[in-house]
């Protein structure tokens, strides 16, 4: 035989072995970007927590916000009331001062009035004295005139001319006296009128004083009311403070909820549990197309039992919708709900699950 079997060398095997390793390394490096591009999701149900805020939650949030508002309002009110009280105090002070001033004024006025009255009395006395003097003088004059008349009677015949003149003068004087009297009368009337006026003024002043008193009383009343309001405000503030404690607890609860949301571990855990349980029990109908999306609203009881599973947005394929609700019904109850925080429990009492068939046929 021309061709003899020779010993197999190591050159080619070494080259081949190194080639195998290089190829393997290249495959690991080349396949990584590929796997990056197509992330294979093994999950069949892409359940997403679409909305976890329920009616009760909203009510709760509303309550909490109301409580917070009430607190703020109470605080505001307290502040306002404090301001009002301060104002009222200031007002009361001002009123007191005003009252004092008024009293002083009234006193002054009274004094003035008394002075006026005294002056008037003096004037009246002076007028009377004058009258009396005048009357005296008249009487003396009359007596003189009588004496003169008697004398003139005696001398009448002789001095008729003079008599007439005297009579004339007498008449004139009488007229004058009459005039004076009338004048005095008028004066008296005027004085009486003035007196009346003064009395009226007095009455007016009394009325005013009364009104003032009333006003003061009213003010006192108002002050008392303000005080009462202040007390009420204080009571309300105390009540608000007690409410504050409740609000604080609510706030801390909410904070805890917020923290839980931030980490969202617990919620993710629960939603993942639910998703897995539902995925395990989901039997996709054979006629389901790939692009179907159904949204199921799931409401749970406090211990995780299923209260209702209803389609909120249908996929258009009734059997697909039915399979989704049946999967949720089969996966219930979700006992893990009991292990969650109270706040999270409330959140997950009502949530939506979105069903989309993955890449399964």
């Amino acid at each position, binding site marked *: 035989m021309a061709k003899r079997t020779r010993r*197999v060398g190591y050159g080619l095997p070494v080259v081949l072995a190194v080639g195998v*390793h290089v190829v393997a390394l290249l495959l690991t*490096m080349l396949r990584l970007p590929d796997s990056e591009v197509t992330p294979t999701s093994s999950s069949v149900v892409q359940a997403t927590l679409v909305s976890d805020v329920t009616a009760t939650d909203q009510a709760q949030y509303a309550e909490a916000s109301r409580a917070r508002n009430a607190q703020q309002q109470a605080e505001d009110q307290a502040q306002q009331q404090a301001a009002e009280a301060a104002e009222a105090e200031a007002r009361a002070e001002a009123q007191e001062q005003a009252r004092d001033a008024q009293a002083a004024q009234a006193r002054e006025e009274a004094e003035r009035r008394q002075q006026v009255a005294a002056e008037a009395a003096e004037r009246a006395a002076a007028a009377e004295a004058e009258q009396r003097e005048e009357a005296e003088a008249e009487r003396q004059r009359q007596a003189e005139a009588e004496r003169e008349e008697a004398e003139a009677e005696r001398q009448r015949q002789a001095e008729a001319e003079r008599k007439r003149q005297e009579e004339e003068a007498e008449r004139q004087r009488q007229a004058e006296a009459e005039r004076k009297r009338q004048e005095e009368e008028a004066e008296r009337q005027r004085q009486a009128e003035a007196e009346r006026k003064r009395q009226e003024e007095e009455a007016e002043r009394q009325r005013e004083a009364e009104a003032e008193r009333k006003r003061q009383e009213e003010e006192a009343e108002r002050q008392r009311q303000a005080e009462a309001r202040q007390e009420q405000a204080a009571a309300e503030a105390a009540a608000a403070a007690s409410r504050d404690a409740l609000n604080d607890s609510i706030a801390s609860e909410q904070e805890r909820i917020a923290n839980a949301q931030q980490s969202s571990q617990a919620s993710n855990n629960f939603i993942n549990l639910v998703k897995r349980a539902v995925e395990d029990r989901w039997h996709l109908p054979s006629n389901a197309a790939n692009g179907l999306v159904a949204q199921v609203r799931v409401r749970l009881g406090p211990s995780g039992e299923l209260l209702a599973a209803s389609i909120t947005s249908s996929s258009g394929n009734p059997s697909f919708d039915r399979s989704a609700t049946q999967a949720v019904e089969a996966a219930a109850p979700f006992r893990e709900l009991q292990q969650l925080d109270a706040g999270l429990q409330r959140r997950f009492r009502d949530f939506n699950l979105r069903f989309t068939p993955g890449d399964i046929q």
Partner: protein
Amino acid sequence: MNDSMSIPHLIMNASLVVQLVMLLLLAASIASWVVIFQRSFALARARKAQKAFDERFWSGIDLNELYQDVPEQHEAQGAEHVFRAGFREFNRLVPKTRSSEAVLDGVQRSQRVALSREEDRLNANLTLLATVASASPYIGLFGTVWGIMGSFQSLSMAQQATLSTVAPWIAEALVATAMGLFAAIPAVIFYNRLSAIASRLLGDYEDFAEEFHSILHRNLQGRGSNQAA
């Protein structure tokens, strides 16, 4: 998976012990693949040669002719080696002794030596494959354990134990196990396959040796009866 988690990057960033383990495993893997290719070629060639020799041997050719056809300096392999060893011993012994049993004993002994040499040659380096197959997972596991130890040490120093502080360490530690398995799995598969081929070839050689022995025995009996006649 970002760039920092790619396998070459992980290997580059691994600790020294893990890197040494990986290097050892790479060497073992390359060696095992060298052995796999070399043995595959060698055994394929040996089988082909065995088939060719079988055809020639049973084609009715004269044994002397067959023996002389092969150049002396060429080192024969496989069944041919067994044939040549036995035939040479037979040719040497026949002129010296009249006892056919002594001749057959000598032939058998020389054939046994040749068979043993062939067995050695067939199974050469297969022990390396067996060693790689059984040891490299443990070596890789050692690298992984070491890497995870490092990860926990770093975790004890970290203030916040997050997955991202542990993940790179564990990933690079797991690369060691992956490499160990990468070396071990082909080694196991090809060890089984190659040793099966080798043992089948060896069985063929032994069958041939027995048949050749019986032919020589027949010849000696015939010669003995001719001489007696």
